[in-house]
């Protein structure tokens, strides 16, 4: 049984269409990602899963429940990590978790054990008595993840879990999420970090302006939707000296010129006439696919 079914879902806010006919499925035990620029409708989709946002039309099923009718069952069985930090700043780390354990109706003793376990898992044990104001951004994020795991959820929903965090914390969180997946959890996340999506997700969908543009395994998306190699020429003046006119896709973005090809040799040939600091030859990645499908202009 799929953990999440989203079928022809629309969401409009008065004049604005945030989500336009999006469908996808997340299988049990799968790690699924929604990748898209700001304002693409990712968060709206996530919030509709637990009825924080009401859908305008379409059907949604999460763990077998319709969020519009049974939000409590879904929220009881899922952990949700919202985009904003919303910890109780007046309470210490442990009490924050105690208060939430009580929301789920956990018995005092079970709650204590679970809190101990989770603080340990997210490497926050030493901060048990710390006030929220004393925590770094990365610690707060980890605490919110711990909070979402209190009730031993089957599904973890994460809305941009690592936005604004430094690489060390980001990698730590990635490791923890991978461990959770190993334990059998279904995970769903939104992000605009390509590397995050590439590293974590079994499958992902690229959403843009409220619609799903592409879907698949990250590696397949890179293989199937973009040439294997990219030659980036940083100085436009340098590219002006190029005389090459072969079957290579060329893109000009402000001061940079990009050549795409499945053959590295072709690109090397082009780069041959340039001095070393002027170009950068690399394998293409998810970011190239993302920019190709969602366009290079700002989405603001």
């Amino acid at each position, binding site marked *: 049984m799929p953990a999440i079914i989203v079928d022809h879902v629309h969401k409009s*806010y008065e004049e604005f269409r945030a989500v336009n006919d999006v469908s996808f499925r997340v299988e049990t035990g799968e790690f699924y990602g929604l990748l898209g620029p700001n304002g693409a409708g990712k968060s709206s989709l996530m*919030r509709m899963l*637990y*009825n*924080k*946002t*009401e859908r305008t039309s379409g059907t949604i099923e999460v763990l*077998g*429940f319709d969020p519009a009718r*049974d*939000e*409590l*069952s879904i*929220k*009881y*069985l899922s952990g*949700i*990590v*919202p985009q*904003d*930090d*919303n*910890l*109780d*700043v*007046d*309470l210490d780390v442990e*009490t924050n978790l*105690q*208060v*939430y354990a*009580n*929301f*789920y*109706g956990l018995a005092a003793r079970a709650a204590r054990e679970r809190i101990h376990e989770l603080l340990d898992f997210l490497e926050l044990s030493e901060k048990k008595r710390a006030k929220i104001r004393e925590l770094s951004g990365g610690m707060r994020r980890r605490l*919110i993840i711990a*909070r*979402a795991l209190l*009730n031993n959820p089957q599904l973890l929903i994460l809305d941009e879990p690592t936005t604004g965090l430094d690489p060390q914390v980001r990698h730590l969180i990635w490791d923890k999420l991978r461990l959770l997946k190993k334990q059998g959890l279904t995970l769903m996340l939104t992000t605009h970090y390509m590397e995050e999506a590439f590293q974590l997700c079994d499958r992902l969908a690229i959403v843009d302006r409220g619609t799903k543009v592409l879907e698949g395994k990250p590696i397949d998306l890179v293989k199937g939707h973009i040439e294997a190699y990219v030659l980036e020429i940083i100085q436009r003046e340098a590219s002006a000296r190029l005389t090459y006119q072969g079957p290579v896709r060329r893109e000009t973005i402000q001061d940079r010129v990009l050549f795409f090809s499945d053959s590295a040799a072709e690109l090397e040939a082009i780069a041959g006439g340039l001095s070393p600091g002027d170009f950068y030859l690399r394998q293409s990645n998810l970011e190239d696919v993302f920019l190709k499908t969602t366009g290079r202009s700002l989405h603001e």
Partner: protein
Amino acid sequence: MNSVPIPSWPRRVASVWWRHVRVYSSSLFSNALPPFVEPLIFLAGIGLGLGKYIVSMDGVPYIQFLAVGLVLTSSMYTASFENTFGTFIRLEFDKVYDGMQAASLTVRDLMVGELLFTATKGAFFASAVLAILACFGLVTSPGMLWGIPLGFLTAGMFGALAMLVTSFVTNINHFNFYFTLFISPLFFFSGVVFPLSQLPEGVRWLAGVVPLTHPVELLRAAAGGHSEFGVVWNLVYLVLFVPLVGWAAVRRMRRRLVS
């Protein structure tokens, strides 16, 4: 399908109430001291100053007349602050509700639990005033102890009303209007500082419509004093006001919290 062991709604409401108790008691000193100090200052001011000029009112020493009302104005103020500024900060700045909505709670659970906490706080504040009054020998009748349940209800009323107001407010400074134009006048025109019979005939009915009058009248009646509008109307008002305004407030808050 419905085998998910979600806590019952009283349990959920109680868990929200408990959250507020934990937050409130986390800074016990700064939260629990003012309700005891405020009546002290008031009594000192009246006793040393005003009380020398006004000897008696409605047949009792003025300080005693005023004391009855003060038990409940403290509940009114604390509830009004709790569910205007307090609720607004939780809603817009700290995003506390967003987090709680991610747990197995509905918006109704959040708001009902919060109002229940406000009412509890009102009962606590009324108790604090009564304790200070007792120290000065101003609790002259055991009927004054009705101030505790009435403090609970007063705070329930003003909490619900404040929450309804908050559901419309988008700028925190707008609460100043509510306090200046509504709450402050109530202090003077609800039978707290002078008897309602002193109000001109033409506007006396107004006092019968606004909320604070009713618990104050009930407490005066319980303490052996005079009630202008009659105990029955006062009770009916209280019993209807809390659920009706509370229901409207919860509905409106849901619109703020679910998009």
